[in-house]
C-alpha cells in the first residue's frame, strides 16, 4: 500500500511539469502581454517604456526560456510577483524591511472561494442525496418527475438572471438580505457574533444559487446509482430474507449506490478553489474566479500560472484521494490495489 502511494506521488511530479509546460505554452499562444492592456493604449504612454517593461519582465525572451525561469522559481515554491498589480506576491505573503505585510493575491482570494464552495457543496449533498433517493424509490411516478423537473430547471436557469432576480426580491423589494459584497459597511464595529451573522447573510444568496445549479448533477447521479443497485440480485435476496424495506434501501442499496460519488467528490476538489466569474462579479465577491478572469484579460502571466498550477496539483491530489477512498470503501478495489 505504501509503495503504491509513493509510486503515485512520484509520478505526480513529471505530470505536473508536463501540465505546467502545456499551460505555459497555451497561455503564450494568446496574442498580447501585460503591455497591451486597455490602460496602456494611452497616447501619454510611450512604446519605449513598454519595451522597457517587457525587458524587466523577461517578456522579450523566447517562451521556452521564460518557462525555464518560471520553473526554476517554482522549484522553490516561489510563485513570483504579479505584473499587473503593483508587484503583489502571487501566493505567499511578504514582509518588507519596515515590517509591512503584503498578502499574496491567491492567499487573499482563496479562503473566500473555499468557504463558499465548501458550504455550497455541503448544501448540494444535503439536498441532492435525499432527492436522488426519493427519485429512485418513486421511479417514473409523480415525486420522481417533479424532482427531476425541479433539478433540471435549477441546472438550466441562467444563474446570473436568477441571482439578479433574487437580489431584487430579497434586497430591494424586501430588506431581507444584503445585495452584494461580503460585509456591511461599518460591520467591524459590531460584536463578533453579529459580524459572523452579517457575513452569513451576505453569503446566503451566492451559496443558494450555486447550490441550486449544482443540484441536478449529484441528485441524478444518486438516482441512477440507486436504480442500478435496486435491480441487483443481492437486493432481491435481502428482500427475500424478509428484511424491512428501510433496511434494504438504506443499508444495502444506498451504501453501494454512493460508491461512484467518491469519484465525483475527488474530481470536485480542484473545483473547490475555482470560483465562478459570473457569480463573483454579480455578488461583488473578491474570489478566485474574478482573480483568474482579470489575470487572463491583463495577461498577468505569474497569476495565471499560479492558479493553474495549484488547480492542476489539486486535480492530481483529488484523483489520488478518490482512488484511496474507493479502496477504503470498496473491498473489491482494495484487493485489486494490494495485488
Amino acid at each position, binding site marked *: 500500500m505504501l509503495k503504491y502511494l509513493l509510486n503515485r506521488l512520484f509520478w505526480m511530479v513529471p505530470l505536473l511539469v508536463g501540465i505546467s509546460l502545456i499551460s505555459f505554452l497555451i497561455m503564450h499562444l*494568446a*496574442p*498580447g*502581454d501585460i503591455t*497591451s*492592456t*486597455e*490602460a*496602456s*493604449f*494611452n*497616447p*501619454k*504612454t*510611450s*512604446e519605449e*517604456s*513598454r519595451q*522597457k517593461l517587457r525587458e*524587466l519582465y523577461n517578456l522579450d525572451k523566447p517562451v521556452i526560456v521564460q518557462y525555464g525561469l518560471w520553473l526554476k522559481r517554482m522549484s522553490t515554491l516561489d510563485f513570483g*510577483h504579479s505584473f*499587473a*498589480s*503593483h508587484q503583489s506576491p502571487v501566493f505567499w505573503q511578504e514582509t*518588507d524591511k*519596515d515590517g509591512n505585510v503584503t*498578502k499574496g493575491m491567491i492567499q*487573499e482570494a482563496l479562503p*473566500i472561494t473555499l468557504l463558499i464552495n465548501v458550504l455550497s457543496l455541503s448544501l448540494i449533498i*444535503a439536498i441532492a442525496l*435525499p432527492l436522488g433517493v426519493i427519485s429512485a424509490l418513486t421511479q417514473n411516478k409523480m415525486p420522481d418527475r417533479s424532482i427531476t423537473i425541479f433539478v433540471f430547471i435549477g441546472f438550466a436557469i441562467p444563474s446570473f438572471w436568477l441571482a*439578479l432576480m433574487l*437580489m*431584487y426580491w430579497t*434586497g*430591494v423589494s424586501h*430588506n*431581507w*438580505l*444584503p*445585495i452584494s*459584497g*461580503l460585509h*456591511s*459597511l*461599518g*460591520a467591524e464595529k*459590531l460584536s463578533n457574533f453579529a459580524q459572523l451573522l452579517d457575513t452569513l447573510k451576505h453569503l*446566503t444568496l451566492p451559496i443558494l444559487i450555486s447550490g441550486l445549479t449544482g443540484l441536478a448533477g449529484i441528485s441524478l447521479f444518486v438516482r441512477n446509482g440507486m436504480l442500478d443497485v435496486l435491480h441487483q440480485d443481492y437486493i432481491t435476496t435481502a428482500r427475500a430474507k424478509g428484511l424491512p424495506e*428501510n*433496511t434494504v434501501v*438504506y*443499508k444495502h442499496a444506498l451504501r453501494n449506490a454512493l460508491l461512484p460519488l467518491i469519484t465525483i467528490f475527488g474530481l470536485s476538489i480542484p473545483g473547490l478553489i475555482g470560483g465562478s466569474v459570473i457569480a463573483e*462579479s*454579480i455578488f*461583488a465577491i*473578491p474570489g478566485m474566479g*474574478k482573480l483568474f478572469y*482579470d489575470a487572463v*484579460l491583463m495577461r498577468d502571466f505569474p497569476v495565471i500560472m499560479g492558479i493553474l498550477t495549484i488547480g492542476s496539483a489539486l486535480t492530481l491530489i483529488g484523483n489520488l484521494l478518490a482512488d484511496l477512498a474507493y479502496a477504503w470503501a470498496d473491498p473489491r478495489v482494495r484487493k485489486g490495489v494490494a495485488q
Partner: protein
Amino acid sequence: MQQKPKTLKTVLALFSFLLTTMLIGCGQQKTESANDFNKAYPSEAGGTLVDTLSGEPSGLIAMMAGESSASAVASNIFNSLLKYDKNLELTGELAQSWDVSADQKTITFHLKPNLKWADGKPLTSDDVLFTWQTVTDDKTRSPYGADYKLVKKAEAPDENTFKVTYAQPYAPALDSWSGLHILPKHLLKDQDINNTPFSRNPVGSHYYQLDQWKKGESISLKRNPNATQGQAKIDRLVSRIIPDRAAQFLELMADNIDSMGLNSIQYARIFPSRPDLTNKIAQYKELGNSYTYLGFNLKHKPFDDVRVRQAINYAIDKQEIIDGVLLGLGLPVASPYKPGTRWSNPKLKPYPYDPQKALALLKEAGFEDHDHDGILDRDGKPLSFEILTNQNKEREMSAVLIQRRLKEIGIDVKIRVVEWATFISRFIKTGDFNVVLLGWGLGLEPDQFNIWHSSQQAPGQFNFIGYNNPKVDKLLEAGRLELNPDKRMKIYHEFSEILLEDSPVVYLFAGYGLTAIHKRVKGIDDPAPPAGIGHNSYEWYIPAPLRRNEMSAD
C-alpha cells in the same frame, strides 16, 4: 435506521423552517424616512458618501497604476502642481502661480505657502523634485515617463520654488504637470517605488486620506485635516467595489450606495418610468471624455483616396447611431476636442448624412456597380472591407448600423469583434486591418502629436492608421512649441479643419457621462460645467436629517 425517512423529513422541514425564520428575522422593515429629499437645506459639514468602483485599483500611486479606478481614488488623496478649473482652464493647485521664461523653455512654479502632508510634515518643492526624479527614473516601471523626460533640468532653488527647463519649448508641459500627483519624499525616499506598501497605504495632501482598504470590498477615505485646498464638507467617502453594473443599480435602488455611473438604458428608459427612483435619486449628464471613431488604414487601398474616405463619412448617419446606440445621449463631433472648450473649432460641422454625395464621390474615385451585383467595384474588385473592433457593446452596435448604411450605397462590410489584448497585438501593432472602430480621449491638452504626426507610425505607436500630412505635421510641431494659449488655439483650430477635410477617421459620436446621485447629496452644479459635476465635489454636502444611519446596511 428505520427512522431514516422520518428523520430526513424532519431535517428538511427544520431546514426550511430555519431558512424562513432567518429570512423573516432579518426583514426588519427599512424605516423609509419621510424626509423630503427635494427640499433645500443649508450647507453643513459631515456625513458619508458611498459610491462604487467597477474594479479594484492595483495601487494608489497613479503613475504606476494606470487604471481608471486608481486615478478615481488617488485624485481625492493627492495634489498636482496645476489643475483644470470648471471651465477646463489651467489653474494652480499646489502652485500659487507659474511663470514661463521669455524663451518659453523654463517654467517656474511658485508653491503656495505652508503646505502640509496629511501626516503634518511640510510639503515643499523638494517633494516635487523627488516626484519628478521618480517618474523619470529608468528603474521606475511607469509608462507615463515620456513627458517628464523632456525636462533637461529640474531644480528646487528654495522651499517654495520649483523650476524646470526644457531643451526646447514644450507646450504640453503645463498639462503634464496637472497630471502628476506629487508624492511625499520623506516616506518614499528609501522605498522601491515599484513595490512599495505606500501604494496601498498612501499619504497625500488633498481633501481626503485613506482610512481603510478592505481588499476586494471597499476603500474608505476620511477628511484630511491638513488638506492643502481647504476642508471638504463631506466627512467620509466610501467606494464599494462592485464589478457588475446591474448589481450596482440594485444597491442604488436599495439605498445602499449614493452614486454610480449609469448606462444609457438606465438613464433614458428605467429612470423615467420609475417615479420612486426619481423621487430620491437625481440624474446628471455631462460631456464625456472620449469620442468614438471609424479609422481607416491609410496604407491600404482604397483608403489612401480621400474621396473614398469622405464618401464613407457622408454615407454614415451619425445621428442615427447616437439615437440608436446611446439613446440620444451623445453629441456628434467634428474635431478631436471637447465641444465648448477653447480648442474645439466652432466653425466645423460634422459631415451630414448624404448618400447621394457619397455615391458621387465614389464614382469620381472609380467605384461603380459594373457587374450589377449590388456591390460597387473598381477594376473588377468589389468595395468590401472588414470593420474591426473590440468587445464593447456600444462599438459593436455602432458597427452594425454602419454596416447597414454602407450596404445601402453598395459597400460590403463585415464586422469582426476581438478581445482587447488580441486586438492590439495581432491587428493594431502589425497594421493588419482595414478599418477599426475605436475611441480616443477628448484631451484637455490639445497636443495630439502622438496620434496624428507622421513620425508616430512605428509598431506600438499611436498613429497606427498611418496618417501622413505634411501640413498637419507642421501644425502639430508648431503647437508643441507655442505656450501662448491664444496662439495655440489658432494652430489647433486649423489642424482640426484639415483633419476634418482629410477625413482619416470618421468621427461618430462623443457620449455623455451619465451619473446618478442620491438627492441627499446637495451642492451639485446642474447643468454640469465643461469640467463635469465632480469639479466642486468638495463643496457637496449631506444635510444631517438626510444622512443614512451609520451601520445602516443591516
